[in-house]
């Protein structure tokens, strides 16, 4: 079971970047928080779906289709994961 997430000092930004790097093939150090998936990381539509899949898997959350369009950058993804884990 996933541990309670508050007060664990978990580096959510680092974990999201790590997941995005794994999917896109970039080194983690090249993935910056302000980067846009399509414009900066060169993602194609299926790769964004793959990032969504990876985030669902890593953080054990379900991301509804309606939320996906709002995930345009690394920061968006970090904020979204934080919000969902607080719920």
């Amino acid at each position: 079971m996933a541990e309670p997430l508050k007060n664990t000092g978990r580096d959510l930004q680092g974990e999201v970047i790590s997941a995005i790097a794994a999917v896109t093939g970039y080194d983690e150090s090249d993935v910056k928080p302000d980067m846009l998936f399509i414009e900066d990381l060169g993602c194609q539509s299926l790769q964004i779906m793959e990032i969504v899949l990876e985030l669902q898997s890593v953080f054990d959350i379900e991301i509804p289709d309606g939320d996906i369009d709002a995930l345009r950058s690394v920061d968006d993804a970090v904020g979204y994961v934080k919000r969902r884990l607080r719920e």
Partner: protein
Amino acid sequence: MSTRRVAITGIGLVTPLATGTRESWSALIEGRPGIGPLTRFDAADFSVQCAGQVDDFEPERFLPRARIRHMDRYAQLACGAAQLALDDASLEAGDLPARSAVFMGVGLGGLETIERNHDALREKGPRFITPYFIPMIIPNMAAGWISLIHAVTGRSLTLATACASGAHALGEAFHLLRSGSADLVIAGGAEAAVTPLGIGGFAAMRALSTRDVDPSRASCPFDAARDGFVLAEGAAVLVLEPEDAALDRGGRPYARLSGYGAASDAHDITQPDPEGAGALAAMRMALEDAGLEPSCVDYVNAHATSTPLGDRVEAAAIRALTGGRPVAVSSTKGATGHLLGAAGALEAALTALAIREETIPPTLNLEDPGPGCDLDHVTGGPRRQPVRAALSNAFGFGGTNATLVLERGEER
């Protein structure tokens, strides 16, 4: 019939013998087998314990990391072989004629990806299927990726004729070039079915060798001890061009592809016609296509996979073709195992190398020809012999048969 001649100007091999054309050929001629213990997955529960694995293949050598994860292994192997073939033909990005095409033979497609995603579906649920699942498993993605990577904008086609796929791809590419409808074709075959379902499926048919011998000795085409084939993976890609154009640009073709025959048994879904009717028809048709008599043939690279029935039937068909005249025959599957959809392309490539090198590769592990398998077998080592014309056979489930004719080409 058009007189446009078609030359093989580049060969890329990613085989259980080695990754690399020269490396694969050397291993074959030196008798170093490509078959070993089955290690690509935990096969403890399986009756089959050997396979022809491409253990030295490093996809990073040929492909960017971000692409590798969006390709099933069969497409990765295909892209590696295509790169090697274009390098071998001294063709770089931007060198390809506008009317270039890609024809690939693939028997199964992305089996490993199907298995992994089915596991994810069962264990975690449908949300965990990768969005790349469909574009990874469809069998036309070997041709698709080759087209994308090398900017080939002509026709991109995939032939799925089981174990004859690679030969049909080359044959159809040859006819396209000869007709004048293309100026270069990247053609071959690819397969990566050394997976639990691939091994398990063929094992369930009792098609695979299970005898308790050193894995490197399990594949023994035409031998009395043969008990099934050894499943292998890999890719073979050839560059085909009009011979004149190839020579004009300073190329040194391996051989000429000059004939193609395709015929069906219409007998059974997996068993060959007992008289080898389809095989014989394909060989005769290919020779007629090349304008050659059977007496011109110096070498036959047999399909012979090391199965009890298939090898015997092919031997009978070859005898019927040549009328008893001795013709050198070998099955390179003794060394490579059976690459399914890539087999026909690999064996055509090895036949082209035999013509260029004037060296006929042996049937590894053939010591005692079984009943009905009498032929002029090349065994015990390669045979140094000029080859004017050769046949390469490939037969597949569904009763489909393909034969290619290769000849020594013009040199300048």
